[in-house]
């Protein structure tokens, strides 16, 4: 069973288009995240939701809008795509306890903007 799944795995689109990436977790976790990994492999958090409530909103262009219909899903919608948006986007989920805060990552969505 896939713990954190993302669709699509690859996304190639033209500048100016609007696209969405979907994420689902079946771990029963309360918290979900979106990360952006650039060509240098740097992982940068974009958003975090806890029980459908936005708790972290890093300095991200407002063209990026997360939506959490329920605590098992966190989608990412991107408007007016730009060349610099090309990256791999990872969804993750976690459940904090006294021992730690293991984040479980999805397989990633490679976005290429032409």
């Amino acid at each position, binding site marked *: 069973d896939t713990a954190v799944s993302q669709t699509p795995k690859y996304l190639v689109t033209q500048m100016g288009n609007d696209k969405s990436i979907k994420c689902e977790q079946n771990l029963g976790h309360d918290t979900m995240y979106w990360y952006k990994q650039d060509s240098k*492999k*740097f*992982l940068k958090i974009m958003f975090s939701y806890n029980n459908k409530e936005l*708790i972290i909103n890093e300095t991200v262009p407002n063209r990026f809008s997360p939506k959490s219909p329920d605590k098992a899903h966190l989608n990412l919608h991107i408007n007016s795509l730009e060349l610099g948006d090309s990256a791999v986007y990872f969804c993750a989920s976690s459940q*904090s306890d006294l021992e730690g*805060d293991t*984040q479980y*990552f999805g397989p990633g969505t490679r976005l290429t903007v032409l």
Partner: protein
Amino acid sequence: QQQVKQSPQSLIVQKGGISIINCAYENTAFDYFPWYQQFPGKGPALLIAIRPDVSEKKEGRFTISFNKSAKQFSLHIMDSQPGDSATYFCAASHLGGSEKLVFGKGTKLTVNP
């Protein structure tokens, strides 16, 4: 401001050797220090983690060493194998706080056969 500094950026080790990756943090509120392993085309996965109440944690060939006073921690991979070739990320966070998990910039490890 980068809160977790990781070095080296890349590392080449011979099979059977010891791989050592170092990280330093700035925020003294951090109390959880995980290492993530990422293979090409995959998402990062938790490898091993440590809390600051211990100075060392070992799981198989992987060991975290933690120096609270120096605000440094490191990953040691003993008897490195070609299958260990991956990108390794250190990270830090404050459990129960509003601090998010902050990642280092990653170390690409190549283990030659």
